[in-house]
């Protein structure tokens, strides 16, 4: 029954814009399905399974071949729909009406742990026949799920936070514990689900996992009312936020995106393993200019992010550093509940111990985050303005008495970004350029989130290099949903950092805001569309300015 149930779950989640609804839907799904299927469901919904068994193009060609359908017609449909799995699902509606229903009761587990992995063992001809067989014996309502898993494009508007909340409500255990359990390499199995819903909390099992990250909110004016001495000031580095976990001698590097990245930064793992103490550090990974003592541009870091087992020469060309902000655990003692100012003392104490060693010194790959000490708020502003000079994005302001909780807790940490104002937005439309840029799509429109919807908020023409323009143009042509004259609507996938000079209310725009001199300042290939800013962020930004 459960693949049908999962298809229904997908449709229900897809058809709701309300967080509470989604949580209820998830809860009742978990209650009425087997642990193993629940485990797979979580695996799929949290986007941990983007393994592509066949490409979208392969799927379209296969359909064309099996059902003698003109390839160009499928491609035209694809342009309209923007997703191969969905196009083929829609076209299958015409093809698989009367058939045997052999697979009508297949479980999610059977499909994911047997049927689909077995495909990779077959030769091409057998594989094609098998896919055809599945299409024709699987109930129509399950085609979309099957095609999406096959092409590694399963995505639905459910965040890991929603899963966390629904499990937390299901078993009445704090969200922090659940999100801790959900972090990192979640492998679908009965055990992993049982572990997730286990009502007793087992410390050892949590050993290699990072703590949920505490995130900073956008700056609020009301902070000015407080004494400057209540806060700790740090530079806001533009790198990869990371926790280094060393427990029982084992080192794990976890990004904020919950990826274990040991393989990408082996030199850091190696050096950290030398440290005699066990610890959990929160900090930022950067490619560092050791001579100038500032960070290199984010683009340098991009050269390292997706490269596993980098060669020695890459390691030398793009030397990394871990800048430690915070100490969360030391030799098995969780110190997140003690005040930031006291954690800082501990952090300094241990770093000076680790750096003062004559052998296996870690000072060439990690440092403690320097603190800034503004005398008063105007002085803090001056520091903020200077942040461009040392390649940082502004300031991070932390309440000295704060404990390290999780998520974007209000009233503890703030990011105070340097002007120009910036928002991360999703590319949704492109228009052909003219003159020197004729034949290329160079005029772009960007959108911000409003609930589940992307609302256009600005258009920008400048900021990309010629190479980037060409690359983006190619992508645009492949990812068009619809053409309206010279304008193409695009698959929401690309995130850009948009900078502007002024932001104000506008009744003329659907978004309700207008920005002045918008321009692209960074192509955030490291960000997913869910990481883009919301209109709410934009309004907050506006409030802050006025």
């Amino acid at each position, binding site marked *: 029954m459960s693949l049908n149930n999962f298809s229904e779950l997908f449709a229900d989640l*897809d*058809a*709701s*814009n309300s967080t509470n609804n989604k949580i209820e839907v998830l809860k009742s799904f978990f209650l009425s399905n087997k642990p193993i299927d629940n485990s797979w469901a979580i695996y799929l919904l949290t986007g941990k399974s983007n393994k592509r068994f066949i490409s979208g193009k392969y799927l379209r060609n296969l359909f064309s071949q099996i059902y003698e*359908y*003109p390839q*160009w*017609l499928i491609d*035209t*449909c694809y342009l*309209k*729909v*923007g*997703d191969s799995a*969905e*196009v083929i699902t*829609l*076209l299958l*509606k*015409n093809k698989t009406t009367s058939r045997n229903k052999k697979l009508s009761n297949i479980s999610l587990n059977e499909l994911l742990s047997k049927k689909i992995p077995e495909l990779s063992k077959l030769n091409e001809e057998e594989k094609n026949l098998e896919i055809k067989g599945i299409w024709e014996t699987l109930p129509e309502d399950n085609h979309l799920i099957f095609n999406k898993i096959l092409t590694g494009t399963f995505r639905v508007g459910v965040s890991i936070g929603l899963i966390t909340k629904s499990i937390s409500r299901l078993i009445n255990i704090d969200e922090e514990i659940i999100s801790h359990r959900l972090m990192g390499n979640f492998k679908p199995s009965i055990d992993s689900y049982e572990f997730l819903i286990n009502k007793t909390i087992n410390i050892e099992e949590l050993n290699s996992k990072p703590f949920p990250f505490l995130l900073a909110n956008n700056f609020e004016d009301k902070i000015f009312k407080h004494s400057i001495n209540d806060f700790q000031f740090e530079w806001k580095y533009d790198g990869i936020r990371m926790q280094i976990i060393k427990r029982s001698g084992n080192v794990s590097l976890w990004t904020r995106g919950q990826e274990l990245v040991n393989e990408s930064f082996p030199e850091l793992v190696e050096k950290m393993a030398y440290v005699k103490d066990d610890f959990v550090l929160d900090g930022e990974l950067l490619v560092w200019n050791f001579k100038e003592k500032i960070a290199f541009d984010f683009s340098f870091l991009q050269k390292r992010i997706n490269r596993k087992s980098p060669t020695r020469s890459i390691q030398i060309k793009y030397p990394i550093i871990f800048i430690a902000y915070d100490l969360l655990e030391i030799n098995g003692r969780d110190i997140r509940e003690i005040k930031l100012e006291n954690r800082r003392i501990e952090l300094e104490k241990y770093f000076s111990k680790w750096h003062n060693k004559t052998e296996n010194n870690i000072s060439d790959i990690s440092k403690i985050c320097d603190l800034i000490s503004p005398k008063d708020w105007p002085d803090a502003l001056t520091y903020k303005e200077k942040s461009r000079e040392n390649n940082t994005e502004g300031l991070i302001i932390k309440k000295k008495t704060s404990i390290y909780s999780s998520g974007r807790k209000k009233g503890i940490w703030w990011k105070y970004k340097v002007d120009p104002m910036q928002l991360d937005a999703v590319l949704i439309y492109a228009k052909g350029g003219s003159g020197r840029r004729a034949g290329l799509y160079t005029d772009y429109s960007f959108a911000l989130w409003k609930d*589940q*919807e*992307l609302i256009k908020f600005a258009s920008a023409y400048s900021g990309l290099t010629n190479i980037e323009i060409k690359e983006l143009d190619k992508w645009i042509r492949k990812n068009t*949903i619809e053409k309206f004259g010279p304008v193409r609507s695009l*698959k929401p996938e690309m995130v850009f950092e948009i900078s502007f000079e002024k932001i104000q209310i506008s009744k003329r725009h*659907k978004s309700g805001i207008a920005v002045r001199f918008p321009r692209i300042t960074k192509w955030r290939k490291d960000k997913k569309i869910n990481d883009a800013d919301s209109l709410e962020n934009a309004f907050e930004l506006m409030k802050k300015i006025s």
Partner: protein
Amino acid sequence: MRIKQEDLIRYKDGNLYCELANIWIDPSKPVKRALITHAHFDHFTFGCEEYFSTYETAIILKERVGDNVKIKTFDYGEEFKINGIKISFHPSGHILGSSQIRFIFAEEKWLISGDFKLQKDETCKQHEIVKTDYLISECTFGLPIFKWDETNKVANDISKWITNSPEKTSLLFCYSLGKAQRLLNEISQTNFKGNIYSHGSIYKMNNCYKELGIDIKDTIKIENKKKIDELKGSLILLPPSLSKGSYLKSFKNIQTAFASGWMTIRALRKRSGYDKGFVISDHADWDGILEVVKKSEAKNVFFHHGDSESLTKYLVEKKSINVRFFEEQI
């Protein structure tokens, strides 16, 4: 290729035009004589000297735009002559009164499909297959991804959608003329037995349909917003124009859906901002268009209003009939 200068029906200034009769079909600007296929506003413009339509179309139009228009009305199948050209209206199944228009001149038959559908719809006359030499067909949904489910299946889905959320008020957005009445008719045959409310614009059309002898379920006109609390578990039909803006703010605890053929595509569904999309259309799907092309026995087919390129190419590859691209003549 294109419709040639000497063709009986031409494409001129963005509209279909028969020069010999000096008559336009659904013109978008004022002309002397206008044939109106049906009463949707995008097929009507003010200021023409004389309009021609079916009786039902005329009644609905007058209800919408006032009595101040001069419309000559005809029954389905009734032939009339202008400059020696025989013209007649035939049911197109799109909405009440909607029609295809046939022209006969010098033994040559031309048929303009109008907006049409083949699916069951008890609120209007079933589409009629009309044989022709030349067919000018709409192709709003001219791609094979469009394949409509049976109407009662969609109606049952809507019914389930409402009854599964008894704590909520369900707002279903749909075009106020045609789609709304068809939905009412279908939903009243499902398990949903709660109250149904109509927005004024829909309510007006419901009455108009009733006056023309169509059986439409009674609904409550949604007037003052005081009754909000009583709306729990009921269905409200609203025109799509109200989906954005402040109107919705007066409701509490709602779920929204849009009923349209475009809801086939997930990206459009997501972008539209409604919670849910129900795929139901008053236009023909891909198979429907192909069926009409085939059964009309037309030797020449032109497509407009939609993805004409794909259909044309598809039929050209099949080599069964002479399909010509339909382009603007300047």
